[in-house]
């Protein structure tokens, strides 16, 4: 992959910890790569796996989910629920051909601005190494084989595409 690829990563952050950690990193002028677009949730337990699928289907190269450390969730145990969803989602995505590095879960308290910045930098590098996800539903590549013109060319077909003749 070329050096210029800048991954787009959607970060779903918990209001009480990691969103503040990111804020803290900002106010403390800790540098971290600008590739992560943060979306604030009230808690990692609000993370519906649908959000992750939406992000990946619409052009994100990866998703970062963050929450309070185990035992520290403001809604008692919702982050454990998030953990279970995350692990099951990751297995499902593997079956779709999406690498595990593209969906990551990070625990970070409000005081861990520097650590969150490090984690973000690590994820950005891992995703950069994988290259763009470029899921076809996010591009005009998708649907192209079904253009009106092409669908009606059935009878005009003269030769088969190589992969079917192979």
């Amino acid at each position, binding site marked *: 992959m070329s050096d210029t690829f800048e991954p787009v990563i959607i970060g779903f952050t918990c209001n009480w910890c990691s969103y503040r950690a990111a804020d803290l990193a900002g106010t403390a002028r800790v540098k971290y790569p600008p590739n992560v677009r943060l979306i604030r949730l009230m808690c990692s337990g609000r993370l*519906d*796996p*649908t959000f*992750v*699928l*939406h992000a*990946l*289907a619409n052009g994100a190269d990866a998703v970062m989910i963050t929450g309070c450390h*185990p035992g520290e969730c403001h809604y008692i*145990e919702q982050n*454990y*629920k998030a*953990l*279970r*969803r995350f*692990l*099951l*989602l990751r*297995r*499902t995505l593997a*079956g*779709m*051909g*999406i690498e595990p590095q593209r969906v990551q879960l990070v625990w970070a308290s409000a005081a861990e601005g520097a650590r969150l910045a490090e984690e973000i930098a690590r994820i950005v590098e891992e995703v950069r190494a994988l290259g763009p996800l470029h*899921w*076809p*539903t996010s591009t005009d590549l*998708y*649907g192209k*084989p*079904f253009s*009106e013109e*092409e*669908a*009606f*060319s*059935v*009878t005009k*077909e*003269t*030769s*088969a*595409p190589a*992969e*079917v*003749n*192979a």
Partner: protein
Amino acid sequence: MSANEKPKFAMYWAAACGGCEIAVLNIGEKILDVDANFDVVFWPVAMDAKYKDVEAMPDGYITLTLFNGGIRNKENAEMARLLRRKSKILVSFGSCASEGCIPGLANLSSRQEILDTAYGTLTTDNPDNIRPQYSYAAPEGELHIPEFLPFVQTLDQIVPVDYYIPGCPPESHQIGAVVDLVIQALQGKAQLPPPGSVIGAGGSTVCDDCPRKRHEKKIKEFVRIQQIKPDPDLCLLEQGVPCNGPATRNGCGALCPQAGAQCIGCYGPAEGVTDYGARLITAFASVIDADDPQEIERILDGLPDPVGQFYRFNLAASLLRAAKPAFTGK
């Protein structure tokens, strides 16, 4: 339409198994109402008709078309467009047309892999490795078969659809009720629901129709139904059997859990569910009784095929729609 001219009816199958047609024939005497109230102008399984007959019809000529089957090849796509033009009401009939269904699971594989499986495995007697050709010069002239598209699409990914009737196949009593409704509406005695609606099904989940008792019990392992003797009165999911009831639209009357088997999701996503698999991931994650990552992973090992579990009927309609090999060809 003149007074003595009946509304026109058509039914077509694209990438489907034929079960939807059987389900329509299964509506019993109601089929006589169809005949009494409609002129059947095109229905390949039941009568001889040629595509060119349909092409010759004026646009909007067919009052009601039930289209079953997904879009797997160019012929399917072409017929979807043709029947859309010729029909006033186009119904996406059954799971294949609406969400890809079992044929949609081919969206996990590339075309090459599918053809290799069909024509080149050890158990296939094909010593010359003959593969389908899109065109063939026969003595009588050039023959063509339609192109096999890279992945299965749903009918509404190709053309706009007026209504959806879910199910694999739709339950006959539900089809009967829809037939009644359409006849009543044509006679001005009833109103059709707004376009885009799901008809012939309920508005909630299979769990809501399921008589098994739920106790918010959590589980330490997933089991396959043949490994246990399930309690007939308790929720299967709470006994560790991966039941898709929580994300699946009701309409069948919760047939499978009442017969002792888990719901596998043939009525598709419940009302308001964007991604069927995502809803099930949420539902399954909340019954798992573990907080430790390793323990959770151990429990998840009991679901050996998450994509098959969560998208058995819905892959082609899911947010991701296909796995990487189908998109990339590798």
